[in-house]
Structure formats: structure tokens, C-alpha cells
């Protein structure tokens, strides 16, 4: 059993109320910080902890904080990224719903560390119920003087405001989020300048994910070095994994980094194995944007090493035989899942969500989607497979933001590992056309890597 440090208070009845949260030690870390610690001390502890951004990119948080321009006299901003929209990812929603005060405590400590006086929480518009929960929690925090002017007589003042999204996946990209916060379309900005110099309203800005900010609380409580001892190697601490798809126990799990993927999928403590006694076919371990891996490769690397839930282990083998930890959106597919249909589905998502700013992404996603649709419907031809690979290659790396890569990887990885399924669709249109859902097609046993 791994250590639980972020979600240990979940399950205490009424923990979303500030009184219960305080009775269980809540806001004591903030009080300690305001009494005994200088902002630079906090940045140092977070750097020592090895904490990496939990939104998907995995960039070291302490380093990101250190880039913030402190020389200018402009105001500095912290924007909390609560625009969780990556298919397969629902961990931030869970955290905000169950432990809103942990996020707020982490926010306040982080703002104090960065010298921020105004903070916005950008919550995706569809999470309207979460906005209500956070609003109540913020009001309670203001009422108890953890927010507002001269917090707990420390001389430090901070305001936190909620801001809703409007239903656009791209706004989870940090510069698109800043555009959206300024009341504009969510078109990502060209970098540099990076937000640390020119962010919200052209002022120095840090954008951090919900889980990242909440994790600051246990880091300060136990100290950065102690936190860094949890986990494995450069993947320090614990991570929230949202597991879904064809498993017995979908849900959000806090795991200690380094847990074997096999244990995560099959143990009763976590996913509880594949639903209906079926076999595992494939996993997308970090949200829809990361490469899909077949059962054999998600459990063991090409070299036969056990695959672990860490940034490093999951990406071992590069894109030929590895994938990424990403946001921790863990999607499991059983033997009945059709990889062609799934790839078409994801590509339809990216086509819909492309902001349209860069031609390779706008045109490329709108080209791949109909090609995948026709293969899925038994109307494809052999050259379509290479065409898809070619389009994906031309999107990747040629766009302002990582969305282009995210749209290309599911396609190229599905063809890399499940080419036989694409070929089957092309070779047997009569079977494909007569199947209600692509997912019910029976592939020849020999061509599939099951476990």
C-alpha cells in the first residue's frame, strides 16, 4: 500500500466545511507559513520536493516559480488551472469537490511564496457545481480571515476570484487560458515571452494545476526533502490517477509514484481488474493526448522491465514503445474495444477542439477525422493508413501550442501498435459495415496482443 498524503482527509464527514477541515489540522500549515516562513523559504522547499506540474506536462514547479519576474513593479498573478478537460481525466474535479479547502490553502501559500495579491481560479464552465462548492469555501476562508486584507495580522493580503470557462478544451493550455481570462477567444500565444514575464494583462504570471497547488500543503508540512523521499527517482511524491474505461473500479486513486502499472490495473485496491472477466487490450495512461500502448507494452517495457507509474518508466522506449504519464487520465480498453473506432473518436474530439489558429492543426485534424471515419465504416483504402501517418507527422511540432502534438500522437501510436486493425477494416468492409458498433468486431486471434 502506497502512502496517501494528498487525499487522506477525504472521507471525513463534512470535510468540505471549514470548521471540520480546521478540526482536522486544516489551515495549520498556512498559519505556520505566515508566522515562520519567508516567501523564498517556500519556493526553496517546493524546489527541493521535486514536485512536477500535475496538469500533464510534468514541468518542475519550483523551477517554474523561479522564472517569475520579480524585478518589475507590475502586479504578479497566479492563475489556478481548473479547466480539466483532457478526456480520461477527472482528478481535479474530485479534489475540488471533496477537499476544496486543501486547494484554497495551497493557493494561499503559493500566492504568498510568489508575492501575488490577486489570484484567479479558472474553472471549466461545465463544472458549475464545482464553482458553487468553491464559492462557498472561499467565503468561509474570507470569513475566517485566511483571505482578504492583512491575513491573520501578517501584513499579507490576497484576493482569490473564480472565473468560468465556456467549454473549450484549448483553454487548459496556459496562454490560451490567459487569453480567455482577458475575455477573448482561447487562442494560445506565441512563446516567448513566457507568462512568467508577460502573462495575464502583460504582467508576470504563474499558471498551476489544481493538484499541483494542493500538493504544496503537504510539501510545506513535511518539508521538501521528506516529500522527495516518497516516490521513485525524479517522480517524487504521490499522484492522483483517474481510472476509467473497461475496469471493475473506475475512480480517482492517489498512488505513490513507482507503483507497477500491473498492480494498478489488477489489484483490488485500485482498478480491480478488467470488467466482465475480459482481457486487457490497451491503455492510454495519461489522458487522450498520450500514445496508446497495447497490453504487453503497458505492463512491461520492450526490454522486459516492469513498467511503473512514473514519468520516466512510462516514457521509456520513447514513442516507439513508450507513452507518457501526462495528466494521469488512465483509460483502459478490453479485448472488445476497437482501436480504429477509438482513434476516430479521439480525432473527432481534436478536430472539434482545435482553436483554428495554426493551419497544420486546423486543417490536419479536419482531414484525419473523415479519413478515420471512412476506415471505421468500411470505406477506407490501404493508402489511407500511410496518409494518416503522413498528416500526423506534419502536424506534430508545427503548431504554436502542444495541441497539435496531442492530436497527432493518438493517431500515429494507434497505427504503430494496431495497424492490423486498420488493415482488417480495409480488407473486410462487409464485416465492418454489418457490425452495429465497431467494438464488436472479432479480429483474428493471432494478430492481437492480449493479456
Amino acid at each position, binding site marked *: 500500500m502506497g502512502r496517501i498524503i494528498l487525499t487522506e482527509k477525504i472521507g471525513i464527514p463534512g470535510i468540505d466545511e471549514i470548521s471540520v477541515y480546521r478540526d482536522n489540522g486544516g489551515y495549520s500549515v498556512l498559519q505556520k507559513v505566515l508566522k515562520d516562513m519567508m516567501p523564498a523559504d517556500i519556493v526553496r522547499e517546493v524546489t527541493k520536493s521535486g514536485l512536477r506540474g500535475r496538469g500533464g506536462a510534468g514541468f518542475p514547479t519550483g523551477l517554474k516559480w523561479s522564472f517569475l519576474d520579480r524585478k518589475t513593479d507590475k502586479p504578479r498573478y497566479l492563475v489556478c488551472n481548473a479547466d480539466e478537460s483532457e*478526456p*480520461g481525466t477527472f482528478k481535479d474535479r474530485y479534489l475540488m469537490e471533496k477537499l476544496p479547502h486543501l486547494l484554497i490553502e495551497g493557493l494561499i501559500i503559493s500566492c504568498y511564496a510568489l508575492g501575488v495579491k490577486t489570484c484567479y481560479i479558472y474553472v471549466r464552465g461545465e463544472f458549475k457545481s464545482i464553482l458553487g462548492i468553491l464559492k462557498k469555501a472561499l467565503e468561509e476562508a474570507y470569513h475566517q480571515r485566511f483571505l482578504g486584507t492583512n491575513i491573520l495580522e501578517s501584513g499579507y493580503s490576497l484576493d482569490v476570484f*473564480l472565473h468560468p470557462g465556456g467549454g*473549450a478544451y484549448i483553454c487548459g493550455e496556459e496562454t490560451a487560458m490567459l487569453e480567455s481570462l482577458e*475575455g477573448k477567444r482561447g487562442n494560445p500565444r506565441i512563446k516567448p515571452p513566457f507568462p512568467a514575464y508577460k502573462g495575464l494583462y502583460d504582467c508576470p504570471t504563474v499558471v498551476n494545476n489544481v493538484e499541483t497547488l494542493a500538493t504544496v500543503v503537504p510539501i510545506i508540512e513535511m518539508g521538501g526533502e521528506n516529500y522527495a523521499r516518497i516516490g521513485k527517482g525524479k517522480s517524487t511524491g504521490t499522484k492522483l490517477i483517474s481510472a476509467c*474505461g*473497461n475496469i471493475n473500479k*473506475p475512480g480517482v486513486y492517489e498512488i505513490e509514484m513507482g507503483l507497477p502499472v500491473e498492480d494498478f490495473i489488477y489489484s483490488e485496491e485500485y482498478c480491480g481488474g478488467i470488467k466482465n472477466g475480459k482481457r486487457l487490450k490497451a491503455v492510454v495512461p495519461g489522458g487522450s493526448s498520450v500514445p496508446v500502448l497495447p497490453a504487453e507494452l503497458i505492463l512491461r517495457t520492450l526490454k522486459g522491465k516492469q513498467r511503473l507509474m512514473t514519468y520516466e518508466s512510462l516514457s521509456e522506449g520513447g514513442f516507439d514503445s513508450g507513452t507518457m504519464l501526462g495528466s494521469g487520465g488512465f483509460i483502459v480498453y478490453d479485448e472488445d474495444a476497437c482501436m480504429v473506432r477509438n482513434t476516430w473518436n479521439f480525432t473527432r474530439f481534436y478536430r472539434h*477542439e482545435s482553436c483554428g489558429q495554426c493551419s497544420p492543426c486546423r486543417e490536419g485534424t479536419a482531414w484525419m477525422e473523415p479519413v478515420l471515419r471512412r476506415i471505421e465504416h468500411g470505406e477506407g483504402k490501404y493508402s489511407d493508413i500511410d496518409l494518416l501517418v503522413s498528416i500526423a507527422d506534419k502536424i506534430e511540432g508545427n503548431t504554436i501550442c502542444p495541441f497539435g502534438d496531442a492530436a497527432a500522437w493518438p493517431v500515429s501510436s494507434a497505427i504503430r501498435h494496431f495497424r492490423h486493425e486498420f488493415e482488417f477494416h480495409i480488407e473486410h468492409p462487409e464485416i465492418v459495415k454489418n457490425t452495429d458498433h465497431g467494438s464488436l468486431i472479432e479480429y483474428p486471434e493471432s494478430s492481437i496482443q492480449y493479456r
Partner: protein
Amino acid sequence: MSNRIDHKLYSKENKKVEFSAETLMQIRKIIAHYPDDRQKSALLPVLHIAQQELGGYLSVDVMDYVASLLSLEPIEVYEVATFYSMFFLEPVGTFVIEVCETGPCAICGSDYIVNHLEKILGIKTGDTTPDGLFTLKTVECLGSCGTAPVMQINTVFHESMTPEKIDLLISELRNKNNKPSESRWAELF
């Protein structure tokens, strides 16, 4: 993005639209969350409020009104309203049913959910029932993949859906024939 613009929508009807005094007060509070010269930042929250309180969708009249409230050019409002998929540019039913059909929901049977809804409502996805009660749409990932398949009705989530649960829900809504008890956008900030 999803919202295709139909040019006929740009014909103004010049209907009088106005927020209540109470809502206006809440909007002034929201504007104060942003720096003095940055009230454009209030656009997304105000558009959510406008859609909810001024007719269920963003007509040109409503968008022009929002523009005047925030001292923006109307085009600044149109370009935002057409970018974000939560804003409707044409009239919708009293109950807007949006079924998630992205990956995780798809492998858990969202197709069956959509088919079932089409059957019992007697409409195709994208359409509104003749009585104006239901609009059926599909949307991309709602961020609730652990309880797939998921749908929302006027931004209230309904999780782990089955045909039986849908039958029950729809008949309840038909009987009530009024707005669901969703929270007011104006009170969320």
C-alpha cells in the same frame, strides 16, 4: 469550434433585453474582480448569466446588450460567443440534454444512450422537440469519465446513465414542465 454561424442569425430583432436590477448589481460585483481597465475579462461570466436569464440563448440583441454593458464593440462579443461551445446561438428547448460521446464514454456505451434518447424524444441529435421542451445534443468530454456514460441537462450532471434511468428522468421532466432547479450563474462569483 463547434458553433457554425448562420448569417440569418445576424438579423437583429431589436427586442428590448435587460437584466434585472439585482442581476446588474451582481454583474457590477463581477466586473470589480478584474483591474480597472480590464472589464472585458467579465465577458465569459456575463455571457453565461445572459444566456441563462435572457432567453436561453445568445441572440444578436442579447450580445449587443452585453457589449454595451461592458463597453465593448459588438464584434468582441460575437467572436467570443462563437468560440465557446457552451453558448447557444439559436433558440433551444427548455431542457438541453447534452450527451458526452468522447472516448471513455464511448467505450462505456454513449452511442446507446444517444440512440435511446433519439428514440424516446422522437428527434435527431441537434434538434428540438416540437413542443419546445427538449433539445438533444452531443458534446465532447465532460470530465466525468469514471461514471461514464455521462450527460448533462442544463449544466446539471447525470452520471452512469442507462436507458432505464433516462426513461425515468425524461418522464419526470415532462411532468414538471418547468426549468430544472439549476443554480444561477449570477450567484456563483
